[in-house]
């Protein structure tokens, strides 16, 4: 019987025994270990995300503070806002971020995404041999893709949560210092929570967006790269 490998080729109903697998739990484990071993590099990759997300969260929560003060209908707090430079019309019921503020935010997030792409491309180049070896051991493109996306997702989640909390804490502190404790009592915690959640979500999304191209580069790599001696 010559066709030893695929003697079951005609029996297409049983392809499962010809398929290489990587259980999801194992992927998570490998991705987690990979981050832990390269902790310093992961930290740097994540740091730009932390900064951008905390800036976003800071801006949003600052607005939440101002809105809380306006909603209290207290003339003193309204005066305090105007003195602090908020551009309030006599009838204004809430504060929204100005176009300039939004523009700076978008720019910072953009720069952060480019930073992530750059860092992840470096990481992929650094790990060419590792990826090639895995492919020689039978890994499919999508295993590699999944590992990179999981890693980026974990980094993104940790970085975004840290950034969002950091930004919120600083915004509340700044609000308290500028307007006094009375102002903080007016802040709707639900709004602050929503701002933190939104900032976290955007951070994770950017992290995943940033890793997409580098992960595709990694996944498409040929296993023969593992044989190369240089580098």
């Amino acid at each position, binding site marked *: 019987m010559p066709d030893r*490998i695929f003697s079951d080729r005609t029996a297409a109903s049983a392809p499962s025994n010809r398929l290489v697998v990587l259980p999801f739990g194992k992927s998570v484990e490998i991705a987690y270990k990979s981050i832990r071993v390269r902790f310093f590099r992961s930290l740097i990759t994540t740091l730009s995300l932390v900064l951008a997300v905390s800036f976003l969260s800071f801006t949003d929560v600052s607005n939440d503070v101002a809105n809380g003060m306006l909603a209290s209908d207290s003339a003193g707090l309204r005066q305090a806002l105007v003195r602090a430079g908020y551009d309030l019309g006599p009838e204004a019921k809430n504060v929204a971020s100005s176009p300039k503020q939004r523009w700076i935010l978008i720019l910072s997030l953009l720069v952060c995404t480019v930073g992530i792409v750059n860092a992840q491309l470096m990481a992929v180049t650094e790990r060419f041999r590792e990826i090639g070896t895995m492919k020689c051991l*039978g890994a499919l493109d999508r295993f590699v893709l999944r590992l990179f996306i999981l890693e980026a997702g974990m980094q993104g989640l940790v970085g975004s949560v840290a950034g969002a909390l950091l930004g919120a804490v600083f915004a509340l502190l700044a609000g308290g210092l500028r307007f006094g404790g009375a102002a903080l009592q007016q802040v709707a915690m639900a709004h602050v929570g929503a701002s933190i959640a939104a900032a976290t979500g955007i951070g994770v999304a950017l992290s995943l967006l940033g890793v997409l191209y580098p992960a595709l580069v990694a996944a498409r790599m040929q296993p023969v790269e593992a044989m190369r001696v240089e580098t």
Partner: protein
Amino acid sequence: MSNVVRVSGVTKSFKLGKIEVQALKGVDLRIDRGEYLSIMGPSGSGKSTLFNMIGGLDKPSTGKVFIDEVDIAQLDAYELAWLRCRKIGYIFQTFNIIQVMTALENVTLPMIFAGLANDAAVQKGMKLLEQVGLGDRHSHKPFEMSGGQQQRVAIARALANDPAIILADEPTGNLDLTTGEEIIALLKRMSQERGVTVISATHDFKMLNVSDRVVWIRDGRIDKIENREELSISIGRIGARE
């Protein structure tokens, strides 16, 4: 006896810029099951190209490569991955132990890919590490091990799914003389005990002592194929030449 690898009329050309380079100019080769075969040749001879083709890492421009009588050009990405996982074990000059994993995790990874349950994989992995003499170092990371030890891990990893073929690309290239000899002896022992075919591309004349056959590649063609008997006569001369 069936051929575990059959190469017939294989040519391979690359494009280097605008120039077309022919790395292989028609190679025919049959490799028997359980054989220990060395491919020798100067760099640039097409040795690596042929070797990659036998390992299913590259496809020929014309001609056919059969591994276990399956034409690898016919396989899709999934089947190729399966072939690499189950039928071929790779050993590299640079060891290529996955840096973030321990010795044991490196050995179990191909078994996980093959669908083995974690416990069974760990059990088998420990046994393999003991066989290559590293039973007590299973939890060490690659940077805590010497080159020879890393190559032993690589051998255990290559054997993980009981492959038909072990492909060793200059397995002793980054090792000193004694360690290289140990690795060659280990490969030979594994090949005899398990009946696995070992194919190695090498410059290392120590390899010739244990090879059943040596294929000399020159200029994209097979220059000559020597059996062991012919080799043992000329081995002194070869040794002196080195």
